């Protein structure tokens, strides 16, 4: 093999002078022709900055301050804009993180291809159509997508189109920056399969940037681990998996486990003993009873069928119990959460909390329910008002639900911060959301949910936006709340591993119906429904590449 890309002593800074930060710090590595290499790291590790530097797309305030990026002996960092543009045919191509938004909403897919063909002139005008169809076929799309606009395609299809567009440049090197992060689990699995197959067939060199060590390990031959702007480990996948050298790599690996295993342990989690579950120390705690509930939405447009989001679902969330609701997107799990919190009314059936009929509540009566049933949202970045301090955010529900005022309210706010492990509490109370990390923000969201001293917490994908190393902490907090305060937990997720560690019971939803339910460990170890098996198979499996 010969070297395609050689990076020597590369540094990229954000900003200039005293206020600048080193995003990429003296990094050196090389890629051989035809290699599939993974670049893994958590948010802020500099992996995307590095990816943008390699593709010559660094934009202010980011700028290369030192080192060289040699592609076939040509330094990309020193090329003029014009030369850089021309080398994009037969050079480096990139597939962006949020491929969903990588397509121009007002241009048809065909025109996206035409724009590239016209810019580089590498395809005869007469062959434009057939070449576009051929490229679509390579990513397993029918040629009819060419006449569609991006808004008419699903997320997975849009990401496939992005890949086909990048491929139309006949690149030597393809940089995939988190290509499947925004996609649904099952779709993610299928798109990764396509990428792996394409790389083998088309024989380009691939650099896969991801926060998910699992995805990287199952597709790449070699893995670069990045931490705080530096590459801390560079080794073949097998060696990373079996014999990691660096502490950081080891820490990342420790957060992976197979939810099907007999014993599942994560940092901060002992293996579960399922008998603890149904006990509760609280008096008068009520169950949530969902009885033959359906939710039908009207057709999105005339002439289309109506949408049944939830289809005849029944279950009971016992006091102090933890129940997982799992399924891919569109399975109806979030709609169920809305029905339980009275955001939506059921089309049929009933939701009861104790003797309260949730579906029959009117606007003025919501407080009776929300005092006891609180919600933790998926996106901690969007769930907090950026203009309000943590103290203000927490004081509002404390005053509204408990009637505490002044010093008493403040004492309660500090107590809540202590409960969710944000100390020193006084310091955190004064902070604004942008001064907190994702994990800290999610703790504030949980503290807000606890302000009314609720009996039930509904957590909708509470850790899916967080870095792996922060997930365990937030999950452990939810588990603690249940054990210490007897809060019942309805845990909504697509992530079967986290479901395995925080819940005792599980329900698998598909197309609005419950397809499987039971004890979490038993269901995951011996799934009987085909859909559950597909979900389990979609979990990145580090051994997959070797088998294939």
């Amino acid at each position, binding site marked *: 093999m010969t070297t395609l890309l050689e990076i020597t002593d590369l540094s990229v800074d954000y900003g200039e002078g005293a206020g600048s930060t080193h995003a990429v710090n003296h990094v050196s590595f090389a890629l051989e022709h035809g290699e599939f290499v993974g670049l893994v790291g958590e948010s802020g590790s500099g992996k995307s900055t590095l990816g943008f530097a390699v593709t010559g797309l660094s934009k202010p305030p980011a700028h290369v301050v030192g080192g060289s990026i040699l592609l076939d002996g040509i330094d990309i960092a020193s090329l003029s804009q014009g030369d850089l543009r021309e*080398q994009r045919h037969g050079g480096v191509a990139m597939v962006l993180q949020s491929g969903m938004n990588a397509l121009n909403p007002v241009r048809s897919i065909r025109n996206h291809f035409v724009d590239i063909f016209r810019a580089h002139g590498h395809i005869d005008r007469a062959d434009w159509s057939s070449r576009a169809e051929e490229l679509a076929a390579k990513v397993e799309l029918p040629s009819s997508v060419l006449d569609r606009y991006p808004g008419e395609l*699903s997320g997975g299809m849009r990401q496939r189109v992005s890949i086909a567009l990048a491929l139309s440049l006949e690149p030597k090197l393809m940089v995939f920056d988190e290509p499947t992060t925004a996609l649904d689990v099952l779709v993610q699995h299928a798109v990764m399969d396509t990428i792996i197959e394409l790389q083998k067939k088309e024989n380009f060199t691939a650099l896969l940037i991801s926060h998910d060590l699992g995805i990287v390990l199952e597709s790449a031959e070699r893995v670069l681990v990045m931490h705080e702007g530096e590459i801390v480990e560079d080794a073949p996948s097998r060696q990373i998996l079996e014999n990691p050298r660096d502490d950081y790599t080891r820490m990342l690996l420790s957060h992976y486990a197979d939810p099907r295993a007999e014993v599942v342990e994560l940092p901060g989690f002992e293996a579960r003993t399922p008998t603890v579950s149904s006990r509760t120390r609280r008096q008068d705690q009520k169950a949530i009873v969902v009885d033959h509930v359906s939710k039908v939405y009207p057709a999105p447009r005339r002439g289309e069928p109506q949408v049944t989001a939830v289809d005849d679902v029944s279950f009971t969330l016992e006091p102090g119990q933890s129940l997982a609701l799992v399924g891919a997107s569109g399975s109806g799990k979030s709609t169920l959460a809305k029905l339980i919190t009275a955001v939506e009314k059921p089309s049929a059936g009933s939701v009861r909390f104790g003797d309260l009929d949730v579906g029959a509540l009117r606007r003025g009566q919501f407080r009776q329910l929300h005092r006891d049933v609180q919600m933790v949202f998926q996106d901690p970045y969007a769930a907090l008002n950026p203009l309000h301090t943590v103290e203000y955010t927490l004081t509002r529900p404390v005053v509204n639900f408990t009637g505490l005022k002044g010093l008493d309210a403040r004492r309660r706010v500090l107590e809540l911060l202590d409960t969710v492990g944000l100390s020193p509490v006084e310091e955190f109370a004064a902070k604004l959301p942008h001064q907190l990390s994702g994990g800290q923000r999610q703790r504030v969201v949980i503290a807000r949910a606890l302000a009314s001293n609720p009996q039930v917490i509904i957590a909708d994908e509470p850790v899916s936006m967080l870095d792996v190393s922060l997930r365990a902490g937030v999950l452990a907090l939810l588990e603690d709340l249940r054990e210490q305060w007897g809060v019942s937990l309805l845990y909504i997720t697509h992530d079967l591993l986290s479901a395995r560690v925080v819940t005792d019971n599980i329900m698998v939803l598909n197309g609005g119906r419950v397809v499987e339910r039971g004890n979490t460990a038993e269901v995951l170890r011996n799934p009987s429904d085909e859909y559950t098996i597909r979900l389990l198979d979609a979990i990145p499996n580090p051994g997959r590449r070797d088998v294939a």
Partner: protein
Amino acid sequence: MTSVTIAPGSADISAAPRIAGSGRGRAWGYVARKAGLLLLTLWAAITLNFILPRLMPGSPADAALAKLAQNGPVSEGTKAAIEAQLGVPTGNILEQYVAYLHQVITLDFGVSYTFYPQSVSELVSTALPYTLVLVGVVTIIAFVLGTLLGVLAAWKRGTWLDTLPTLAGSFASAFPYFWTALLLLFFAGYVGRLFPTSGAYGPTASPQFTIGFLGDAIYHAALPALTILITSLGGWILGMRNTMISTIGDDYVTFAEANGLKPRTVALRYAARNAILPNLTSFGLALGGVVGGSILVERVFGYPGIGYLLFNAVTNQDYPLMQALFLMITVSVLIANFLVDILYGVLDPRTRR
């Protein structure tokens, strides 16, 4: 009223839930829907214009009689004559409504009080061309020019192509209309004697379609046109620049660059093409406002357009003229919005659903 046709081939994309129909059927469905909405709002506006004056106490005839009564007693005959002349409504409300609709459709809005005995339609049709040409043409020029400058400013962000137009634009639009008008009037009209200071054409000319008259009209329109251009250009530059800067940061622009498209293609077909969409709404509102004229500018320059007419109608309590003008302004705003909606449908495939 919509007909959805399913394009051939859509069935084999199993994983695409959002695909409805496409092609001509859907496009006409969209136009038909918008046209239906236009007719509905038109009818509502016309009806409101009928109802509102009838909810107000008193009538124009009462006002005229009260004025006469100050000079002595008014005889029954005079009263009847005035009422007949001003068209005090007769019959029940439904008959009045039908008569009113008939008047609206035949554009018969009665006789103006101020310019008695000229009919309202006559006055409006004389003033309308001046306003349409002056304010309309200038509004379109300002939008096109401002948008182009905005695109350039955003694309060359931080260079003099950005700072100069944005600074000058915000500076000029910070002046009130009449102040800019007065400055131009004083320096270009009075001191410099470059342009005439009032009227739509010279004292010797009379309105006709000859090269000579058109030249004279353009010469007279120069100062008011410049006033409107100077004060409105900045808004278009800033609006386009700001939306364009946000689309430049969007992923599809980065991806287009990553694919090595020509900078011109990226700037125009990717960034600007999307950035212009929100500005179309403002453009629609501005176009709708054209017919209302530019009261201050027309007043300062004594320009005989709709704005000037409206000013006279309001100061002289000329009810028939006011009612006709208000109705016309409402209708033109609705029509402008309809046209912008159609334009949106052409430019943005997401709205065609």
